Each structure stands twice: as C-alpha cells, then as structure tokens.
C-alpha cells in the first residue's frame, strides 16, 4: 500500500519542443506526486503529453524547467552518466511494442540490464531465472522473442524490467498491442509483482476500464497539464 513519502514528485515541470519556428508545450507547469508503492495510471488523449511525462520520469528526457524528484533525488540536475545509472538502478521500463532485441534469446534479453549495471557474471544466471520464474516463462529460456506470442513477449519485457529490482516501474501502454484478455492478464501480473516486490508503478494507457480495474489512482492529462487526479482506493476492484 502507498505510504506518505512520495516515490516521485514533479514540481512545476515543463517540457517544450521547438518544431521549426513554433514551440510545442508537451508538458506545461505540471506538478504531481506519486506515493511509494502506488500504482498510478496516466490517461489522456493522444498528444496530451503523458508519454513525454513518462520519459521525463524515466530520465530519458530532460525537462525544460522544473524539478523531478525520484526517492528524494532531483534527476533534472543529474549529468548524463548519473542519469544512465539512475535508469539502470532505479527504473524499469516496459513498452507497447515490447522492445525486446530480436537477435537475442530471452535469457540474453533479460541479462542485458545486468550487463549494463555491471552485475557479477556468476550472479546473473540465477537472477535471469528468477525473473523468468516470476513471469512464468522458464521453459522458453533459449527461445527468441519472435517465437513467442505478444502476451509472452510482454511478460519477457516485464522480466527484463524487473531483473535489476527497480523501485519504480514505468509502463508505456503495456496492453496497447494485446487483446483485452491478454492485456488483463498482464496487468494482473503487474499487480501481483507489485505486491510481491513492493514498487511504484506509473502506467500510461488509453484504456480507462483497465486502468480503473487495476490502478490505485487515475491521473488525467490534457494539453500538457494535469486535468484531474482521482484516487480509486477503497473502490471495489
């Protein structure tokens, strides 16, 4: 359950792009707090800025202004190397299109974050196996992503995101490429892993019914701003 100390705190964060001569305000003066172990769903129409916000929290993008605190650390002020370390140690990410490397086996895909985090070689096989066990895909260890169904691929992506034991899991439309039953199964799995491992989840989605079913809170964005934030706690799931 969420605690009072926020895992993520955004303070008047803006992200502007210049496209030719016009300036696009993808995120504008947005402030938001996500509590520890909370499951937040970010909703909004296309171009509302929710993916940009997720990339800012992930440290893949930098805000034009404002501060982003993740577990007390202002990541807006980190240099490029520290930002890479932050992504490696604090953040796990899953994507709509899974983004598994097709040339690598599942085992190698899941091992990749461990390589980047310079985890000891001897320790890695056990960590990979443990991650695959959590998503119940141990039997596909040596397969390549293309030999798997969409749902299975997303489970592998989850295993890869979790293998480094991140405190924050960011999901960018994780069910967007899946049928509704599979999508539901994936979110059930995420919920289950959250309660097992204890982590904060921020999920960008279009699918309001799914968000309502699984998230602790809905944050709705429009035009780069936070339009509403609704807690679902206590509501029947």
């Amino acid at each position, binding site marked *: 359950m969420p605690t009072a100390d926020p895992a993520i705190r955004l303070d008047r964060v803006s992200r502007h792009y210049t496209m030719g001569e016009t300036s696009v305000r993808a995120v504008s003066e947005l402030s938001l707090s996500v509590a520890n172990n909370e499951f937040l769903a970010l909703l909004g129409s296309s171009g509302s800025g929710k993916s940009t916000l997720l990339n800012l929290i992930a440290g893949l993008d930098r805000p034009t202004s404002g501060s982003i605190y993740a577990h007390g650390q202002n990541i807006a002020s980190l240099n490029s190397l520290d930002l890479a370390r932050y*992504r490696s140690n604090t953040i796990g*990410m899953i994507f709509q299109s899974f983004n598994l490397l097709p040339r690598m086996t599942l085992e190698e895909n899941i091992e990749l*974050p461990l*390589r*980047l*985090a*310079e985890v000891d*070689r001897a320790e890695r096989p056990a960590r990979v196996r443990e991650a695959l066990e959590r998503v119940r895909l141990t039997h596909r260890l040596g397969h390549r992503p293309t030999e798997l169904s969409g749902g299975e691929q997303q489970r592998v992506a989850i295993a890869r995101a979790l293998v480094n034991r991140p405190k924050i899991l960011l999901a960018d439309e994780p069910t967007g490429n899946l049928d509704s039953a599979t999508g539901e199964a994936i979110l059930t799995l995420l919920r289950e892993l959250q309660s097992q491992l204890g982590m904060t989840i921020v999920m960008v989605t279009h699918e309001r019914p799914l968000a309502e079913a699984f998230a602790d809170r809905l944050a709705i964005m429009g035009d780069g701003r936070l339009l509403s934030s609704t807690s679902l706690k206590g509501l029947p799931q």
Partner: protein
Amino acid sequence: MKPRDLTDLALRNLREAILRNALTTLGVAVGVASLVAMLSLGVGLQQLAAKRLSQSGLFDTILVTPKNAFRMGRPQREPDSGKPPRVLDDDARKEMEKLPNVIEVYPQVRFFTEVRFNNKPFATVVAGMPDSARNSGSFDGMQGTFFSSTTANEAVLQIEFAKELSEKTSSLIGQELVLRYAERQSLPSSATNTDPSANPQDASGGGFSVVPKELRLKIVGIVETEPAAGYGGYGNARLLMPLLTASTLRAAQVNDLRDIVRDSNAGKTTYASLSVRAKSPSQVDALETSIKKMGFNAFSLLDASKSLRTFFTVFDSLLGIFGCLALAVATLGIVNTLVMAILERRREIGVLKALGAADSDVQQLFFLEAGVMGFFGGIFGVLFGWLLGRAVTFGTNVYLARQNLNPIELSSVPWWLVVSALVFAILVSLAAGLYPASRAAKLNPVDALRYE
C-alpha cells in the same frame, strides 16, 4: 559496461551482419595487404641492395695510401708541412692493425697478365683475395668452392671470364690453367726482402729486373658477381687467387715503376696501398680519422651508403603512400558500415539507453566493433600482403631462372612491419569508428525508441 560484456556484445553485433562486416573487414585486409606488399618489396629491395653492397666490401673498408701517392693519374695535393710524407711501411701496417675495431690490414696484389688455357692465351687482371673474403658473402652461391688454403695454387674465375674459356663453365672446375706473369727480381745490390706475404716492392735504389714466369693454377670455383673486396679493389679482376699465393709471385705491379725512380726508402718494405677492414661500416668514420692522423690518405665510400639510405627512405615512403591509399578507401568502408549499422540499430540503441546504458557504453560498443574489424582486417591483410610479396618474388625468380640468373629475395616482411601494419590497421579503423560511435552515443533515446 565491463570490457568483457562490451566485447561479447560487439562480437555478437558483428556476427549478426556477418556478410556486410566480413566484406568491410576484407576491404581493410586488402588495404593493409597493399601496404604490406608495397613496403615488403621496398624493404626487400633495400636489404638486397645493402647485402650486395656489404658483400662488395665497399663500406667497411678504408683504402690507405701514402700522401705522395698518385691517384687517378694526378698527384695528390699535399699540405705544405715541410716534412716529407710518411711512408706506408710495415711499421705503419702494424700500427693500423692495433687500431680499435680493425679486422685486418692487407696490401693489394693486382696485376694485368696473360692466362693460357688449352694452349690459348687470354688477357686478364689477376687479383689476390684475402682469406677473410671467404665469409664476406661475396662468394655465396658460387659454383665450386673457395680456396682450400691461404697458399693454395688455386683460382676462382669470374663468370664472364669463365665463359671466354669454355662455353660450359661448370666443366672448368677441377681443370688447370697456366698463369704467365712478370716476376720482379731484385738486382744484386738491393736489400733482400724476407717477408713474402707483404707484397714487397723492393724499392731499393738498385731497382729490379723483370723475368717472365709461369704458375699452374687449379680452377676451384666460378663466381657470378664481381667480388670487390675493398675500395679500389678487385672490381675488374677476373681471375682471383689467394692473397698469399699472389704475393709470393712478386709480380710486377703498376706502382713499381714509380718506385724505381724514388730512392728514399731504401732497404724497407713499402706498400703502394693498404686496405683496412673495420668490424662494421659504423666504425669506418672514426678509423678514417685515426688513419689520417697517422699521416696517410684514407678513403671510404660511406657517404655513398648514406645517400643510398636516403634514397630508400624516400622510395619506401612513396610505396607506403600508395599502400595507404587503399587503406584510406577501406576506412571509408568502415565508416559506411557503421553509419548503416546505426540506422539499422537505432531502436536497439534506444532500448539499451532505456535499460541503463550510458552514452559512453554505446560509444565504446561501436568503437570496439570498428576496432575488431580493423584487427581482423590487419591480420588477414598482413597474411595477404605477405603472400603477395611471395608471389612477386616467385614470379621474378621464374623470370630470373629463365635468364640463367640466380634467384633473389625480393620481398621481406620483418616483424616490425607485421606489428606496425596490425597496429596501423587497428588505429585507422578506430579513427574511422570515431564519427559513427559519437553519433550513436548522441542519439536521443526518446527519438530512437519511437523509430520504426
């Protein structure tokens, strides 16, 4: 990322696009091969020239003459010291033998004479060879053998002379020829010379008479090139015999007539010239200075060897530049391959960054891939270059064999060429990887992840 993981990933990436990367590597290999082949030919030719020159004895030998000697038909200029010039006698010879780094000091015996073979006369120049010439390399690849002893009545013929004697030169070995020469005999009033090895000129006030003599010599060998043991030495001599044997003949020599009219050295053995051999060409300069201080003229051809080295440096540089051109083209191949790889792996780079890869990880990955292509290109290039050099040598030797000439070692791949070609290939490839690697590192992960 740790170096081992980085290497793993780089090799894996190279394997994935094996055809393209193999072709790029082949391009580097061809570039390195052309460089190695060119330079190996340059080095080989230089070694060949240096070997021939050192065999000639031109660069480790100093010719010593007295300051009043005639050279090139002109009297040498002497400084107006007032003192009479020092005589080149046995004392001087011993003094020179004691100088550091001197292998030997020997007089020259050389005379024009007639040789009879199968009762036909042949005119030629005869020269005495010091025994040290045996190991100088001048007689490598000769037909037959070198003289059996320092005083043997044996002859080695220069091949052109041998061809005059008989069409089938190899049949000459073991046969005898008759050397007819003019022996000097001192007139009764002159001092007796007791040192037959000293090529005495018996320069006595009484002069000498000249008596025709004959000596039977056994032909033991035929030499292809003209060995010239020493500056002003045996270049044109076509019949060579042991120096001691030649000395005992007391054959009349060119300078003899001059000495008749001079009477200042009565009773002493003097020499028209002495050859001083140094241990190596590098010591010739110092020795020359010492000998000049003793009051003699000293000549060496070291300057010629210096200009030869300059020539080969320029020659090698030119060959190297042509070789480098091919490598430069190969470098563009690396840049092209890696830039293509960035486009193809754009999304992958984005994923790596999202998973925690630092810019430097991505940069090193591409850098390493360039380096690996350079490394393998270098290895295969050195191998191809060596083979190319062997092929050129083989072709040349087939041609030489048809012309009845001795085979030569045209190309040479010394270890420094192997190492530097390899290092050069890797460095050039890394340089080629600089731009693609930095471009990959700077890739915006958000854009890269959006890329389809």
